């Protein structure tokens, strides 16, 4: 009931926004070409053919921290172009809507490094550094611009395994990040069964108070298995394991996520809908995370929420 109410609140009003987007893209979809990902989170090594364009719209809801309210909807507009059949570039525009109140534990002012029992403040990585944590945070914000470069070395349709390298620098007013990925893909059963694995490493420079930046790093891996059960439709499972490193060196935690993904691919467009639930088997490693991030086996802290829902719609032309 609590979760449903959160979803309801987050998406109230978004129906119109998404409908307008869909109507807009349908105008030119009739003569379009499609390229797609069968997963919501995991990348495959599939790329656009040379000279093709694609527009993607991502909507990702991230819901619920340890306490209070924490509802974020990330929007991502992607413009992708196939430079060659094995090299693609994309421009991402990232913006989000954040609604939070008393979401993270408050530190005891008289006992540094420990919680103030029963006391929470507004926090999380989506909350601006200069925001007063005693107040709720409700903001729509243009977050960042990022560029994606993917080079495919091996194709899963010709080689024993697909392999691609990914680089994504991101520039924002609150955070700057550079992310690299190794993408692997293996297909079976005439390409109806698709497995993909992504190994990701990212360096983040997050804005702190007084204009300083905190350096963090994350290592994470995503994997997904998807089966095309009838023409056009695929169903799969995705798994995500995230490791956070404070100052890019101190291992803070490991968090785990699992959930289903449904995909539809048509001639002119495609959509993937995925859901991830954080598994209550997370491990807080640093003393700070043991005190502030771990709760009932879940890892929250700045980085994570309990539920993730993502809808990706791609239109090619």
């Amino acid at each position, binding site marked *: 009931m609590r979760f449903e109410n959160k979803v309801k609140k987050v998406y109230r009003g978004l129906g119109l926004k998404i*409908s307008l987007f869909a109507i807009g893209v349908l105008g030119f979809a009739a003569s379009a*070409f499609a390229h797609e990902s069968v997963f919501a989170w995991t990348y495959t090594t599939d790329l656009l053919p040379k000279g093709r364009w694609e527009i993607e719209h991502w909507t990702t809801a991230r819901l619920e921290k340890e306490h209070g309210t924490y509802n974020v909807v990330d929007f991502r507009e992607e413009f992708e172009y196939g430079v060659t059949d094995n090299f693609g570039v994309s421009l991402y525009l990232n913006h989000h809507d954040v609604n939070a109140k008393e979401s993270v534990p408050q530190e005891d002012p008289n006992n540094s490094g420990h919680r103030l029992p029963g006391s929470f403040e507004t926090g999380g990585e989506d909350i601006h550094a200069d925001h007063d944590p005693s107040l709720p945070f409700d903001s729509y914000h243009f977050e960042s611009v990022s560029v994606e470069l993917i080079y495919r070395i091996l194709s899963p349709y010709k080689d024993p395994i697909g392999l691609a390298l990914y680089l994504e620098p991101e520039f924002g007013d609150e955070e700057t990040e550079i992310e690299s990925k190794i993408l692997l893909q293996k297909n079976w059963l005439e390409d109806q069964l698709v497995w993909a694995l992504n190994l990701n490493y990212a360096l983040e420079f997050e804005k702190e108070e007084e204009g300083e930046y905190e350096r963090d790093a994350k290592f994470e891996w995503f994997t997904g298995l998807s089966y095309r059960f009838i023409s056009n439709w695929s169903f799969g499972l995705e798994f995500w394991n995230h490791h956070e490193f404070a100052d890019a060196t101190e291992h803070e935690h490991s968090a785990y996520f699992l959930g289903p993904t449904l995909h539809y691919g048509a001639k002119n467009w495609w959509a993937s809908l995925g859901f991830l639930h954080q598994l209550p088997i997370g491990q807080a490693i640093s003393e700070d995370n043991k005190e502030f991030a771990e709760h009932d086996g879940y890892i929250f802290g700045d980085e994570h929420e309990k539920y993730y829902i993502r809808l990706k719609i791609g239109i090619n032309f």
Partner: protein
Amino acid sequence: MKRFGKTLRWLTVPGIVIVMDAPSYAEVYLSVEQAQQVIFPGEGFSEIPLQLSSYQKAEIKKRSGIAVRDRGMRVWKTGKGDFLIVDTVLGKHEFITYAVGILSDGTVRQIEIMDYRETYGYQIRDEVWRKQFVGKNAQSELMLDKDIKNISGATLSCRHITDGVKRLLATYETVFRKK
């Protein structure tokens, strides 16, 4: 149920798009009769009902390395003893229907793409690409980037058609070739 209404309203959008997209989807280039006349002009055809046995299915897999998905085959024989097989392979989203004309000596006379509903990869209909299969038989390698050139950007379709032709040549060798 009412509480789900607003919450899940946004999910109806992909549904609307699917319905609107469906009617403009198929690209049919040749009917069976047209494919017959393109590959074997002026010939008469008699259909040969064929349901592969378990032994034949296993033998075809052994010869070609490609699994048989459907035991039911659509086969026609010409008055001269040549064969035409209409088959399907998987595309990215849907099935691709194609026809292969096989001469009585077990070599490919011609292949034709009968329908194609995919996003891209339409280049497999190009005559130059299809001509690579002419003269191939069950002993041919039929491998992309070896004896069959790949079309960059249409790799999935190229590979599935190549595998399909290889499987049909093994089918001919297993079922129809006079020993």
